[in-house]
């Protein structure tokens, strides 16, 4: 019944054309701007970017934050996902609801809360001092730690959800099968669960990494100008310096990072599966 290709294309085209015109074309023009300086086609903007130690630092910091957030999210994600799938179906649904909930709350509000929590007089410092871990409040705001925590809270739910569904989709009985064949829990995790949930890890990892690397509010509010990331740097380049060329360079780097991660992780997932 669904053999008529023309019909299928007719249904698919409007959306594809819309996305292409409204979205892909301007982005491509923007990106080409980074190679078109003073009327010449050149890569000088890129060499400038990598020559600037500040720009390199921001790039490295952004990457580092992204990787760190993704790693920690994966670890917490697995622990949480195991806990969630071991619940009864009804509480599992409720728990997933709670995990999803923060995604529905404005990131402005969520980041805002951390400003209070991580402040000198905030709960974290109060707790640390009560416990006696420190006599003086430690400075948490405007640091990479603050940005890290903010990003983690922002994107952890994506990882948890991906891993929960990966665990749920794992074929039945492979864990008991491994157990009966003599594997202990650690061996089961690394030899069976990890490979079989790799897809979910990749999806979650991509979402978390790309989200962290391209987030604006969290680094802007919790990091300020002391913890610039590529996105806040781009924002400054545009709004303060009106430097579109260098903004395009950063934009391209961001896109390469997002797409690159996506493709890379996908590759890893499928390659290891085939091996």
């Amino acid at each position, binding site marked *: 019944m669904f053999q008529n290709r023309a019909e299928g294309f007719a249904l698919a085209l409007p959306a594809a054309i819309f996305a292409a015109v409204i979205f892909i074309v301007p982005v491509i023009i923007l990106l080409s701007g980074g190679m078109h300086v003073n009327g010449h086609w050149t890569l000088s903007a890129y060499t400038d970017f990598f020559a600037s130690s500040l720009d390199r630092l921001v790039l490295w910091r952004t990457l580092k934050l992204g990787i760190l957030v993704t790693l920690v999210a994966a670890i*917490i994600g697995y622990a949480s996902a195991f806990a969630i799938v071991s619940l009864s179906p009804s509480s599992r649904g409720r728990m997933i609801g709670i995990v999803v909930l923060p995604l529905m709350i404005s990131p402005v509000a969520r980041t805002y809360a951390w400003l209070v929590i991580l402040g000198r007089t905030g*709960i974290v410092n109060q707790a640390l001092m009560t416990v006696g871990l420190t006599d003086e409040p430690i400075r948490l705001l405007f640091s990479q730690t603050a940005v890290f925590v903010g990003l983690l809270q922002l994107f952890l739910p994506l990882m948890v959800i991906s891993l929960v569904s990966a665990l749920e989709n794992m074929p039945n009985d492979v864990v008991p099968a491994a157990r009966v064949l003599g594997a202990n829990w650690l061996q089961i995790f690394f030899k069976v669960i990890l490979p079989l949930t790799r897809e979910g890890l990749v999806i979650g990892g991509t979402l978390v990494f790309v989200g962290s690397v391209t987030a604006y509010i969290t680094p802007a509010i919790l990091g300020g100008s002391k913890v610039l990331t590529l996105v806040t740097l781009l*924002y400054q380049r545009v709004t303060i310096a009106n430097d579109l060329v260098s903004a395009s360079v950063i934009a391209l780097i961001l896109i390469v990072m997002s797409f690159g991660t996506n493709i890379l992780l996908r590759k890893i997932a499928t390659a290891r599966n085939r091996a």
Partner: protein
Amino acid sequence: MKARLPSYAVLTLLVLFLVGPFFVIVAASFSAGSTLAFPPQGFSFKWVEKVFTVESFQASFALSMFLAIVATFAALVLGVPVSYALSRYRLPLAETVRTIVSSPIIVPGIVVGLALLRYLVVPFGMDITLSLFLAHTALVLPYAVRVVSASLENLRSDIEEAAVLLGSSRIGAFFRVVLPNIRGGILAAFILGFVTSFNQVPVSLFLTGPGVRTLPIDMLGYMERTYDPSVAALSALLAFMSIGIVFIAERFIGFSRYV
């Protein structure tokens, strides 16, 4: 199954970390003090009241609401047919089409906003509101496609054939049989799209004009100039709104299945 206790401990910490900040916001919005602090200094409704008196909030709330509804609707109008085509027809370029319509999810929002500003708004003098609408539609499109596709995948295509065999036309079969059965997915896509658009920051960051800014951007701006708890109060109100919507959606369509 096995380790009950550790798994409860993990979940408690998780919930605390994910939801805790929200309670801080709520507490702060009922503070009597004039700055954001936790624990709050006293209790009052004054900041909640103030939210309703700030004019720019009213305007930006209206804009964000409008955008979220209209853009999500538009995204569904575009997204449902393409999802249908992708799940029912074996199209030669299916993957390309899928990549195109879902690319807005991968391209960093700030880049999108900048690109639109520079190459649609400035050169063509496009209205900022229109550009926001287009940007948000593009942004919501991938979510719409993903969620609707998922519900279409779960819906057997033979019920359409059954409808046709019972005398229905192809289009009739879609409206009589397919649509009612992916209602939940469409509603979920709508809510997800709504929330995504409503809370969107990076794309809207550059797409502002005098008097035209979305609510989150307006909140950011307000925070930068006035450090009173009214933004907390507003955040809390919005959060309650989102939670309310999601809660109801969860009750009726099992929303979290779709996310």
